[in-house]
Each structure stands twice: as C-alpha cells, then as structure tokens.
C-alpha cells in the first residue's frame, strides 16, 4: 500500500500536470509537486521501515508482475531518491523554469522520481527494465527543453546523446535479461538471486553477464561508455543534473548488483576483471580530465565518472566488503554530486556560464554560504574522512586488495593501487576548483548568496554529507544483510 502510494501519487500528479493542469501557475505547480513528493517521501520512509511487498499480475502473458519490495540494497537508494525528489522540487520554487511550461517541468521531475522509485522497488527483471526506461523521456525533456537556455543545438545534442546512449544500454540489458529469463525460467529477481545461476552453464552465464554488464555500464557510466554524461550534465537544468547524477546513475549500479551479480555470479566472476579494469581506468581518466576541464559542470560530470569507478571496482571484487563499499559509495556519490550540482548550477545561473577560465569573485569572500557548501562538496568529493565520500572509496580499495577467491588477485591488487592513486587526482582537481573559485582576492563582481529554498536544499545535503561521513554505521548495517544474501556468507 505504501509502496503503491509512493509510486502512484507522483505519477498521478505528473499526469494531471501534463493534461489537466497544463496552465497552472508556477506556485501552484510547485505546491502540488511538493505535496506529491513529500507524500512519496513519507511513504518511502514507511516502506523502508515496514518492508511491505506488492505482488500483482500485470502482463500475465509475459509473466510480468508488479512485484515490488524493499530490502537493504534498495532502501538507501529509495530514500535518496525520495529525499532528492523533494529537494529538486523545493529547489525549483524560486526559479521558474525557462523553455517550457512550469507544469511540464514539474511533471518531468515527478516522472523521473516515479521511474527511479519503481526501478528500485522492482523485483521482476522485466519490470525492472520497464521502470528503467521510464525515466528516459522525462529526463530527455528536461535536458532538451529546460536546459541551458543559450544553446539550442547543444541541448539537442546532449539530450539526444543521453537518450540514445542509454537506450542502447538498456536494450542491451534487455537482451541480457531475456536471455537470463529464458535460461532460468523465471524473472523473479529474488528467485534468481537464490538460484545464483545454478543449472546454467558457465559459458552462458558469462554471455548473459557480459550483456547485462555492458548494458548497465552505459548508465553507470563506465569508461569508455561515459561520453554522454558530460554534455548531459552541462546542459541540463540544475534539478535535472541533480537527478541525473544522484538518481539515474545509481540505477545502473543498482542494476549491476541486482542482475548480473546476484543472478549469474559465476558469469559475473568472468566479466568482473574486465569491469574492474574499466572502473580503475575510469577513476584515473575522470580524474585527469577534471584537471584541465574548463567547464565546472563538465568537470563535476567527469568526477562522477571517477567516483563511479570506485563503485564499479567494489562491485567487481566479489566480496561482501566490496559490495558494501559499492552500495555506500553509490549513496555517498548521490548526495555529494547532488550538493555539487545544486551549488554549481546556482553558480552558473548567477555567472551566466560555468567557465573556470573567467575570473570571478571568490566565493569565500562574497558568498559565504555557497562557498561553504562548495568546499564541503569538494572535500567530500576528494574522499575526506568524516565526510560521505571516504568510506566507500576506502572500502572499495580494501575490497580490491582482497578480492574474492575466484578473482585474479594480482590484477585486483594492481587496481587497488591505481584506485588509490586516483584519490590524489581527486584532491588535485577538487583543490584546483577551490583555488580558482572558492579562494582568491577578488570581490567583484558580487553575486547573490544562497537563500531560501536553494539554501534549504543545500543545507539538507550538507548535513547528509556530514552524517554519512561521521556515522556510516546505519547505512552499512542497512545493506549488510542483503549483501550477505547476495554474495553469500564468508567461507
């Protein structure tokens, strides 16, 4: 019931906004969306506590069911999505969208939230795919209609890239899912996870795992499938960037945990070294790209590539620690990148562009709040202990150093070293940004500091970054049991 509430309310309000409520004022649309997202958040919170399940037939011909549940792996992501769902709506309050109607903007936000929640709830492989696709069009609309007002061509390009690239990935994933379902005879993720791929030959498992991994890697994104991300982030409106980084990318890693890792572990073990190498390359690649990137939003997008590299590395290690690390880093990156995008999006609005080469007033001097938020975000991004980013990265390196028995140890240890080197690059680019934007002697031209809804959102995110950093225990405990069921207890 609560699960359905958290899904139906945003979806219904979105549909109404798209049909009946097309002409409502910005305030009304925002109020409605706020109410919807808050209800969804409340329902998600209840669902995370109560852990109800929903199981209803939807398309019996395909064996497709509305099979929804909450477990330790999805709970943090659900909470993250619901909280950010409220956050982005709140953030929009003071900044009416440009490029289309406000109703459409809010509807798109709610639809993305709806799709992401459904993805995280889904316990049926095919339903997962359907939900996975749900977010594409609203996100695409956000990018192409409501994105960077200056450059229509860039919007179209970025939106097209986003939707085509991810559609490619998800269709590939669909092939993998269908192969999996064909081989194992069920699309129930829980049953698949329990089966653990028994009875499927390793060769087939490997193929299925490769398909699933390749498909999901686009969404994560894993090097070299990441080139859609920077343009998408650069052009998307702030709310879109936040959702993209904090929610959409997580769907990829979540899918990796749910599908290949849980369902065809033997096959995944074969693919994992490749994936891990790509993850490590992503860490270095993203970090290096950030060192010379001129556009602040693109820079943060590339840093996302690097951070997701840690998640991938943890996932590939095949240990419980690795999985825990990945899940933690996933959520942490969600919060951190959301914070950074809110700040940077705000800066882009104020500055008119996000080019780092343009000399501007130091944030520390003229806008203490934005400056503080930025430096917290950067510190968390470089993996400073006590902030959210640290635990996932540390545990990820740990997991890579001591991978599961069936992984090539030497390779993974090398990757652990590479990943650790990546943290230096993270420090370098984070401080590069701090040095050019945050610190400095300039006080002109002044810009307005963060206020009202924007500051509220930032404050919540800063608190979340701190909480996750100081007390990682609850989150780790939340994922602990579920991780054990997937990877299996230690030998």
């Amino acid at each position, binding site marked *: 019931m609560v699960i359905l509430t958290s899904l139906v309310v945003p979806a219904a309000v979105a549909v109404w906004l798209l049909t009946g409520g097309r002409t409502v004022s910005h305030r009304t649309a925002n109020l409605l969306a706020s109410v919807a997202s808050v209800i969804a958040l409340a329902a998600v919170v209840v669902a995370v506590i109560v852990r109800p399940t929903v199981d209803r037939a939807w398309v019996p011909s395909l064996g497709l069911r509305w099979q929804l549940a909450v477990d330790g792996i999805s709970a943090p992501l659900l909470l993250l999505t619901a909280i950010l769902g409220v956050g982005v709506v709140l953030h929009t309050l003071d900044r009416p969208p440009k490029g289309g109607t406000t109703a459409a903007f809010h509807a798109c936000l709610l639809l993305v939230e709806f799709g992401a929640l459904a993805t995280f709830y889904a316990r049926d492989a095919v339903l997962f795919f359907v939900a996975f696709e749900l977010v594409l069009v609203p996100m695409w609309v956000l990018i192409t209609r409501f994105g960077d007002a200056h450059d229509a061509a860039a919007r179209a390009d970025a939106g*097209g*890239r986003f939707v*085509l*690239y991810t559609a490619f990935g998800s269709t590939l994933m669909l092939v993998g899912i269908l192969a999996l379902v064909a081989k194992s005879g069920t699309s129930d993720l829980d049953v698949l996870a329990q089966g653990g791929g028994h009875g499927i030959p390793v060769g087939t498992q490997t193929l299925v795992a490769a398909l699933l991994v390749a498909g999901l890697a686009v969404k994560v994104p894993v*090097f*070299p499938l*990441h*080139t*859609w991300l920077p343009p998408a982030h650069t052009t998307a409106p702030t709310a879109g960037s936040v959702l993209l980084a904090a929610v959409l990318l997580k769907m990829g890693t979540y899918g990796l945990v749910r599908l290949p890792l849980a369902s065809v572990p033997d096959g995944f073990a074969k693919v994992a070294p490749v994936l891990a190498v790509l993850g490590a390359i992503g860490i270095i*690649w993203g970090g*290096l*790209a*950030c*060192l*010379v*990137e001129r556009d602040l939003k693109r820079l943060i997008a590339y840093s996302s590539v690097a951070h997701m590299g840690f998640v991938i590395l943890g996932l590939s290690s095949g*240990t*419980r*620690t*690795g*999985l*825990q*690390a990945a899940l933690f880093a996933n959520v942490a990156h969600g919060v951190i990148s959301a914070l950074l995008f809110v700040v940077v999006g705000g800066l882009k609005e104020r500055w008119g562009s996000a080019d780092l080469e343009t000399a501007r007033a*130091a944030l*520390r001097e003229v806008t*203490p709040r934005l400056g503080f938020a930025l430096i917290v975000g950067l*510190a968390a991004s470089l993996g*400073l*202990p*006590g902030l959210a980013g*640290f635990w996932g990265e*540390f*545990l990820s*390196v*740990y*997991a890579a*150093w*001591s991978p599961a028995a069936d992984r090539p140890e030497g390779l993974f240890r090398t990757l*652990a070293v590479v990943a*650790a*080197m990546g*943290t*230096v690059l993270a*420090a*370098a680019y984070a*401080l*590069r940004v701090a*040095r050019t934007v945050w*610190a*400095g*002697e300039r006080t002109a031209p002044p810009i307005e500091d963060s206020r009202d809804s924007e500051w509220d959102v930032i404050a919540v995110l800063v608190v979340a970054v701190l909480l996750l950093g100081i*007390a*990682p*225990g609850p989150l*780790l*405990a939340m994922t*602990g049991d579920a*991780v054990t069921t997937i*990877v299996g207890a*230690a030998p």
Partner: protein
Amino acid sequence: MSAAAVRLVVLVPTVAALIGLLLARRIDPRAARFVAVGASLLAVVMALLQVIAVGGSSRVTIVHTIPALEAGELRIPLELQATVGTATIALVVAIVGWAVQAFAGWYLREDDRYGIFAATVSLFTAAMLLVVQSADLVLTLVGWEVMGWCSYLLIGHWSRNESARRAALKAFLVTRLADVGFVLGVVILAAGAGSTAYPQVLQAWAATDCPDAGACAAPNATLRTAAMVLLVIGILGKSGMVPFHDWLPDAMEGPTPASALIHAATMVAAGTFVIAQLFDVFAASEGARWLLALSTAVTMVYAAVLAFGQSDLKRLLAYSTLSQVALMLSALAVAPADEGPGAGVLHLYSHAFFKALLFLAIGWLSVTVGGTAATAMRGGLRGHLFIRPAMFVGLLSLAGVPPLVGFVSKEHVLAAAEAGAADGQARAWIVLLAGLLTVVLTAAYCMRAWLVLDDLTAADIERHDADTATFPVRALVTVLTILTLVGGLVVFTPLLDLGGHIGWLVALLSVLLIVGAGLAVRSLANGEDPAVQIVGARMPLFDNGFGVDRLYVDYVARPVVALAHLVVFLDREVVDAYVRGAAAAASLGGSGGQRAHRAERASSGLAWVVAGVVAVALAGVALW
C-alpha cells in the same frame, strides 16, 4: 572515568569545531574565541584526567565509540585506547592546542575570519588527538586525513594571497600523494588481520613466535614489508621528509599559530606516533626501516643546512622542524626491537614544547616588528623582556643544550642509534653520524637565530610586549617556557614508556659539538648575520630549498597536466569518436539510402524484389 575522559579528549575539540563553525559568521569574535579557548582548556583538563586515570599502569584500556562497522568481511571496531604513552602525548597535544588557540585569539584579533580559523584549529587538534588515542587503523586514517585537510585550510587561511593558495594546495597535494601509501598500507594490514583494530593487526602481523603453529599462520613477510614501506611513505609525506619535504617550508604562508600547531605537536609528528603504535610490526620489516633511516638521515642534515641559510626566520624554524622530525623518526628506524619506540616518542614530546614555544614567540615578535624576515627581525628581541628569555630557552632546547628537554630527548635518540649500531645495524651508523652532524648544524642555526634576534648592534626598539599581548598569551608562553625547561624530568616518571637511556659518551660528544659549533658561528658572525657571512649570495638558493619546487613542477605537475590534456583529447577524439561516428554513419546511411531510393523507379523496385528472392533463396540453398 577514564573511558569518559578518553572519549571527551577527542570529542571536546570536535564539538568545539562544530560550534565554532556555526559561530564563525558572527561579526563579534568573542563568542568564537571563548568557545575555542575554553574547549581547548577543557581538553587539557580531560587529557590530564586521563593521565591520572591511566596512571602508571601498563594496561591498555580499550574504549568504544560509535558501534563497530561491519563492512562485509572487514570489521572496523572504531575503538579508542588509553595507555600511559597515549595519555601523555594526548596531554602534550592538548596543551599545545590550547596554547595555539590562546595565542591565535590574540594574534588574529583583527582577522575577519578568526572564527573559522579557531574552528579549524579545534578540528585539527581533535584530529591529532584522534590519531593519538585511536586503537583502530581507520580512526588513525581519519585523523590523519582530517589533519591534512585542516592544514590545507589553515595554510590557505589568508587565501587572498596567491602564495598562500599555492602553498596550501601544495601542502595538501604532496601529503595526499604520500597518503596513497598510507591508505594502501592500512588496507594491507587490515586485509591481513580481517580487522582494523590495532591489537588484531599487531597480532596478525607482528613477528612473534606463534605458540601453536596450526592456530595462526605466519605473516607474509613480503606483504608485511610492502605494507610498512607504504605506511612509511605516507609518514614521510606527512612529516615532510625527503623527498616530500618541499611543502613544509612553504606552509609558513599560514598564520603563525597555524604553523605552530602544524609543526609542534600535530601533523608532522603524527607519523612518529603511528609507527610507535605499530612498532612491533615495523621492527620486523627491514625494508621499511631502511627506507625510513635513509630518508630521515638525509632529511635531518639537509634540512639543518637549509635552515641555516634561510633569510626568513619562520622558514628557519620550518626547516628545523624537518630536521627534528627526521631525528625523531630516525630513532624508530634504528632502535633495537626490544628497546621499543620510546626515544622517538620522547623527542616528539619535547619537540612539541620547544617548537610551540619558538613559533609562538616568533609570531609574537613578528607582530611587533612587522615581519619574519631576518632583516626585519634583526634585534627584535631587544625590546621584549618577556619574550627574550622564552626565545632563549627555546633555542637552547632546540640546540640540545643540557638539561633542557630538547637535550634529554635528542640524547635518547642518539642513544637509540648507538644501541642500534651496537646491534650491528648498518643503518644505525648512518643515522648516528647524521645525527651528530645535525647536532652541529642545529647548534649553528640556533646560534645564528639568536644572534640575529638579539643583535646588540641594532637600534633599540621600544618595549611593545607590555601593552600588546594579553594575559593568556603571557601565560601560555610562561607555561611553555617552564615545560621546556623542566620537561626533561619526564624521564624519571613512568609517563613515557622509555626503553632507552642516555648514552653519556655520545651526550658529552654532542655537548662539545654544540658548544663548538655555537662558538664557531659566533666568531664567524662578526657582528653580522652569520648566514650572510657564510652563505652570502647563495641565500636565495637556500630560500627556495635548492630549487626542489621546480623539480616537482617539471617532473610531476607538468607531466600530469600533459597527460590530462592527452586524456581530454583522447576522450573527445577517440572515445567519443565512436559515438559521433555512429551518429554520422546513421545519417550518412540515411542520405545515401535516400539517394539510392531517390528515383524510386518502379522497375528498380522490381529488380530489388527479384534480386531479393534470388539472394534469399541462394542463401537458403547454401545453408540447408
């Protein structure tokens, strides 16, 4: 009681930092000052309580904090510990922290960002105390990294100066680079133990004889060496040892209280304590000890030489820190395994006092003379009846004149080296020789500093001290002076678990060397700055650390940036080329197909049909 004290020692400054952060934006700095100084005093009280509670027992008290983290196979207990050693060092740190807070309250009274500075110092102190009290590798790492970040903030406090921004960046990046080693070392140790708690790690890795061969597997010696080498790399970075030494002098761009904090008892010395904690494992890794010995031996001499030639007295102190920290680390590198890390820890203890004293004194002085350059400070002490003795004591202690605290600890270090040499360790000879050389050089630059500061020929300067410094500042200078004077008595208490002793022969030798060096410098000075006399025109070379910064830029920074440009190029032209290529191919195919279908002739349609049938049929025939 003791558990609460242990927790509070760490917690009080942390909370102070958070409160300070909230108060930071108040215009009136009094609230911030009150919180910062009050909390630091409270921390001293707590540390004192802890010392009392732990007393002379050799027991290790484990204290729980937040619940342990269960990260899959890895258990992270997140516990603190209290032993006599940790309690004492914690007290030292707390005292230095208080001194710095109290001093900063006065020193930065005009600064519009004092609040945030005070909060950062609180956090810095908390992080160091965490490192000291930690019974868990991860907690150590947390404190370790937070210190690094705080040092970044503190060094870059005056970020309106480009040089401060650069120095902060450099400090953080260099230490961060070395921290890769630290993190990996921690990871390897934890991976071997399945836990990050010190007891488990020590048990798993120490070279103790296993009572029951079946119950515990012998630790992998290669991995152990790797872990410890990596750990040492991290420590070299944080402590500014060669080859990571270049950031530390630049860090003088920060406000003097920050320098005092960084140099005296916290960040640069933290490595000593970490190795001391892991000494049993460390002692068994020859490779790591060699690395540490070589690096510290080079650093102590090199830094001492550089210290002598600095045109800026604050930088002189910075290089002296390098040299002294190298000394304390060298003790760990060469001390015989059964003697333990006591000598190094003792030097950490003593260095904290006299270096804090020196920094605060010089900071105070700089306020009155308007700079820290040797030329500006010339004769600066003449008007300061209050600072003059403090500075004198501090420099003597630094030079290692008996019976000041610096003498006691330095002799312990030398004695450890001697013992190591007696043990047949080749590296101990190196360290011993370097140590003696350092003694000479230290005496020389201390003498130089004194001669500059107390230059009798300089014009008499008005007495400033009475009307500028506040009471707390005077109090703290007094306290630090006293501690520097009598701190050496600690060797007669059970507070520091010392395995060593003073080698009287070496002590005598070093005293002679000190006196000789001092006299030599004095005579060479000839009423001028001795450095000008000796180094002369080569001073700028000394000032920029023999151009090491350039090397970093040319051989590390530039290649990395070049690589980054390459990556961006590849990202755009190769990785993305597939994407653009696919799009281009699709539209090219589209327009090509369009052209092929442009005529749309019915007969070509027919040709297509028949050709298709034949093709399909032939394919079918070929395949049946």
